[in-house]
């Protein structure tokens, strides 16, 4: 479904992504871990099409379509969903109104007929229940005054509503309390199908106990330095990143010799 080949990207002239390769197939869950500042959010931003990143090399394909050629909204309509690490607040714009607009754009793109107000509300209700999102939050202004955890849960509610092909969750678990983490994870598990895929960016092994990944990747210094199965996450939990960093820098110094 998603194919990233040798992706390099700069921000303000500084190279942040230094040759990422990643293949994600339909039905899979991939976890991306890695130390702070290693480029995880940058990768998700580049995939979503944030314009302050400049792609200098490489390719990204989504089901045979060149993602890098598309505007952010086109990528979203093609089915790329990013649950933001820091969702923004938009005062005065009602959550529901916003979702209605988003959904109708996406449905137009997918050649689906517009939803009636009644069907939309019905769907809203179903999805709210699925991810246990409080109705009163759905009716408030978009993220305005939401607590950190409420914002994260709103991202998952939106994900449920928009039914994307590829969901990238950037630290959606951080800021969630223990119950919320379980609830949100259950919600995501319910949303999994053979046709969609999830990329979970996380710092915590705990999330991966709820949503079991098919692959775990470690991103360090703008590169995927190690890939493995869910056991890799356990190993990281135990040992931290130092051993990987050392390995990486050892490799680097050999390369430069």
């Amino acid at each position: 479904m998603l194919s990233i080949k040798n992706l390099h990207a700069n921000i303000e002239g500084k190279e942040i992504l230094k040759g990422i390769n990643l293949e994600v197939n339909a039905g899979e869950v991939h976890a991306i871990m890695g130390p702070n500042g290693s480029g995880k959010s940058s990768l998700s931003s580049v995939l979503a099409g944030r314009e302050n990143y400049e792609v200098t090399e490489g390719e990204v394909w989504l089901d045979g379509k060149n993602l890098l050629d598309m505007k952010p909204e086109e990528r979203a309509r093609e089915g790329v969903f990013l649950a933001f690490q820091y969702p923004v607040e938009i005062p005065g714009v009602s959550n529901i109104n916003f979702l209605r607009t988003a959904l109708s754009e996406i449905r137009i793109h997918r050649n689906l007929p517009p939803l009636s107000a009644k069907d939309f509300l019905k769907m809203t209700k179903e999805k709210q229940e699925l991810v246990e999102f409080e109705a009163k939050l759905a009716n408030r202004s978009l993220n305005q005054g939401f607590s950190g955890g409420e914002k994260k849960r709103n991202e998952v509610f939106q994900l449920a509503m928009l039914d994307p092909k590829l969901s990238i969750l950037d630290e959606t678990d951080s800021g969630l309390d223990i119950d919320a983490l379980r609830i949100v994870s259950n919600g995501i598990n319910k949303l999994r199908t053979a046709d969609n895929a999830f990329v979970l960016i996380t710092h915590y092994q705990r999330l991966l106990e709820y949503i079991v990944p098919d692959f775990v990747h470690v991103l360090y210094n703008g590169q995927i330095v190690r890939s493995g199965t869910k056991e890799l996450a356990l190993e990281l939990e135990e040992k931290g990143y130092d051993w990987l960093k050392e390995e990486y820098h050892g490799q680097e110094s050999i390369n430069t010799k």
Partner: protein
Amino acid sequence: MEKDDMMLDELANKEYEFGFVTDIDMDISEVGLNEDTVRFISAKKNEPQWLLDWRMKGFRAFQKQDMPQWQNFEMPEIDFQSISYYAAPKKQAKYASLDEVDPELLKTFAKLGIPMSEQKQLAGVAVDVVFDSVSVSTTYKEHLNEMGIIFCSISEAVKNHPELVQKYLGTVVPHTDNTFASLNTAVFSDGSFVYIPKGVRCPMELSTYFRINAENTGQFERTLIIADEDSYVSYLEGCTAPMRDENQLHAAVVELIAMKGAEIKYSTVQNWYPGDKDGKGGIFNFVTKRGACRGDHSKISWTQVETGSAITWKYPSLILQGDHSSGEFYSVAVTNNKQIADTGTKIYHLGANTKSRIISKGISAGQGQNSYRGLVQMGSKAKNARNFTQCDSLLIGDQCGAHTFPYIESKNNTATIEHEATTSKIGEDQVFYLNQRGIDSEQAIALIVNGYAKEVLNQLPMEFAVEAQKLLSLTLEGSVG
């Protein structure tokens, strides 16, 4: 921000939708302004002597006045001698029905989406259309007549209800008020007149669409609304003008009078031609609007959505005379490209326990300049008077400007005045967030702006609110990419 700049450059090309010229024979007075011009207009309209005399007083006051200089922009040179002060479609016989109206004119109205159709009547809108200077058609009149409501052009009111007009005209905005009000007094062409009798609740929104059509004509309409004791009326004013390279002057006067227990809601959606993106052409909108809450427990509220004009100079004001009277001012003013808006309100608390509320939302994009200018004055008898002012500015891009000039004068220490102000910028991250959900940038801006202006838009009657939302988006099209 870099991205904002790019957005700005990319979208700066939305054209004015209502820019077309209607080809109809016009009866136009010669350009220039002198006593004869005033007499010509008065004679054309077969006015009584008292009205001509009053016009003359206005003209003389105009001659003595200077252009105001306190606003936050350089007053453009306006050559009052190069304007024609009267333009009327030639087929001027009274139209008994719409069928008699020049079809060209009707086409224009259709393009403007003026609600004269059957469906709109169902929506309960009675329309008084002012096409340049002469009122063309008033619908729904009979139904209103039965209730004793008078809703007609001011010229008709002068003919049919001279005692009412003479009693109230110029009592809120005197002929000496300011240059533009004096000019309007001298040369006002037409406008609307509303009288709601005691105890009557006007069952529908009354609405006027103004439109400037002829080249080099100023539009000087005069509106007078009187709500007698315990009555209620909601009045809507919409305006559009075709595209012209030259600047056109619009200097209207609106007077509202609310007697004891009466309530007037006055809503404006102003969409005059703003000029092109380089600032060429566009309407100079210099308008004097004032309401007097004469009786106890009376209420007036102004709601305005100002999206058009090259320059907007407008301060709908309120005189809260009656005890317990209250006033509201809700405003959204948008400036894009080279537009300038200097707008706000003045509220004079004279009576005891008077209350006022000001909600102003400025939106600046492109190189637009947006100033809020407000005065709240508490008189010595205004015991326990209260004012709340909220004054917000939203910036799109970094070449525009937002300014606030709130003035407060209190001669009463029992009065409370609260003022809150915020300035914010539409962030690239907000737009990106919405993009990431499949919403393109223009729609994203529209969503954000409508959310920002919601408190004001909610004041508008449903039908108008939808139109105002569209206009906001239209005006800002081209401000973000």
